[in-house]
């Protein structure tokens, strides 16, 4: 659906995007993660036809974005990281205006606007002036706006920034709904755990380079070469610890209250071996959970490796 090839963007001598390659498959949610100034916004603006790259190619649904930006725009819904609203428009007029700017007929766009307001849960605000909405509502309205022309690819630049946890959860729910509707979504964030839950795959960008790309699990595996499981036992904590330490794949065991955090190398097969060893020794295991890993830490590692390399 989205293919980015050797994308380069220079601001003067400064390389904001450095030979970036990535691919997002249709119907997937791709998390575009990176620290401040990594080049996320720059890349997304380029994909959204709002910025000319220095070199490289972006193909959206078979359309070369730079050769045919007008056609590409029909496929792309872009939500910028910072955006404003016109102060003299009502919510439904706001959507109506952008609908007309996308060349949608009056009747049709009125219908679409109602559906979209329903989707983002702003139906009861449709007669409110846009500038009276709260930040979270504006963000949802902007999300509705970028859906108005029924694009297939959504480019959302930090859609949940500055929102409270509940509002984040709402946005996530909307994104899941959009995924169900078959949309492909590119979403940026500088917090990996925040989007990890909804993303099918993520790419971590740092200083204009895509450092890693893959599913969240793959990235954790590749970056740390280990899996973390949390094990809770009913009793016999000490016996469990000594048993675990004997296992070859286990690299560390940390006791945390009634739980054990066990780091181990290897695949799911090894995990099963581990569990079997515990159970067959009559350790009363009540919970055995594979952790998503400490994403925050991985993120820090990934983005600081580069620093050391430089």
């Amino acid at each position, binding site marked *: 659906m989205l293919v980015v090839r050797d994308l380069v963007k220079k601001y003067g001598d400064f390389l904001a995007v450095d030979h970036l390659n990535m691919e997002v498959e249709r119907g997937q949610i791709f998390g575009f993660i990176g620290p401040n100034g990594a080049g996320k916004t720059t890349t997304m603006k380029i994909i959204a*036809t*709002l910025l000319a790259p220095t070199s490289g190619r972006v193909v959206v649904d078979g359309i070369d974005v*730079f050769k045919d930006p*007008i056609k590409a725009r*029909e496929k792309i819904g872009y939500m910028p990281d910072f*955006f404003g609203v016109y102060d003299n428009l009502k919510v439904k007029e706001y959507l*109506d205006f952008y609908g007309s700017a996308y*060349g949608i007929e009056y009747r049709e766009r009125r219908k679409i606007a109602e559906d979209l307001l329903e989707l983002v849960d702003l139906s009861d605000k449709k007669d409110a002036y846009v500038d009276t909405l709260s930040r979270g509502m504006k963000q949802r309205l902007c999300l509705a706006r970028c859906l108005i*022309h029924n694009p297939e690819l959504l480019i959302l630049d930090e859609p949940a920034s500055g929102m409270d946890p509940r509002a984040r959860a709402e946005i996530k729910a909307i994104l899941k709904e959009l995924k169900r509707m078959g949309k492909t979504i590119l979403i940026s964030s500088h917090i990996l755990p925040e989007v990890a839950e909804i993303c099918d795959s993520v790419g971590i960008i740092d200083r204009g380079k895509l450092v890693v790309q893959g599913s969240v699990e793959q990235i954790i595996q590749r970056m740390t070469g280990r899996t973390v499981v949390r094990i809770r036992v009913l009793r016999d904590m000490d016996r469990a610890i000594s048993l675990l330490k004997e296992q070859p794949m286990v690299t560390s065991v940390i006791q945390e209250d009634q739980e054990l955090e066990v780091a181990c190398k290897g695949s799911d097969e090894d995990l099963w071996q581990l569990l079997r060893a515990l159970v067959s020794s009559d350790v009363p295991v009540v919970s055995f959970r594979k952790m998503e890993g400490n994403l925050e830490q991985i993120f820090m590692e990934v983005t600081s490796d580069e620093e050391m390399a430089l």
Partner: protein
Amino acid sequence: MKRWLYNPVLASSLKTRMRGWRTAAAVTAYLGVMLFIAYIFFKISVENGVMYYLSFSSSRSAGLRVYLMLAVLQFALILLVTPAQTAGVISSEREMQTLDLLLCTKMSPLSIIIGKLLSSLAFILLLIISSIPLFSLVFLFGGIAPEDVAMLFLFYIITAFAVGSIGIFYSALFKRTVVSTVVTYITIFFLGIVSVVLGAYMMSVHYSQVPSPTDHYIPFILYINPAVGLGDLLARQAGDPTTNVYYGILGLFFGVSRSLGSPQGWFQKLPLWIGNSAVISGIAVLLLCASAWVIRPYKRLRCKS
């Protein structure tokens, strides 16, 4: 055809602009200022006996003077209002961070620019129309026909178009509305002064070189100044220049030059105000295209559809 004419930016602004008290207040303030200045003008004129001295006996002449005063006053007000209306349209979109949202729609940069300009011109047109009752005073005296007023209003629109496109160009060029507004006023003031001074100088040089001038010479620089066109238009409408003080002031060069022989090229044969309208409209079109070029996302890359 209808779809082609439809401009979302214009449609939205027409719809929302008339809402609330702001536009109504602006029109009221505009008419208030115009009435106030007109009143002061008459008071001073009557007190100084200027009106009387200038053959006030003739009702036609009095009507003419009222007309000329109102015409110049409204022209000045349009010159003042138009930059304020246009110099922020793109830069404020940038400041509000809505320009990108607009640029990634199906609207082309040029149609965005045109929509913005037409919205501003619609407001100016509203001001002009609201001044019709004031102008109809003139008909009481006679001497000016409705078609003269219509012609004058047309010239106003052309002037607003030209001045507005300068404002839009700067607002596309500069990031901040304040900067673009200031630069627009400075440019208009500068062009107005420089064109007249330079034009007068070129004429004096031209005629001093020819001992007994018989040709009709208008320096091209004068064509960029709508005040010159206004002077010509009003002079034509007022008829006999010798009975008209106003004509003596602004139409000085043209009165002189017109009395000297017949015009040379086809362009100079056109009435000056029409030539002037054509030149400023042409410049305006160029500025609008330049503005569209400035705001389009792809500057170097080819982006034909």
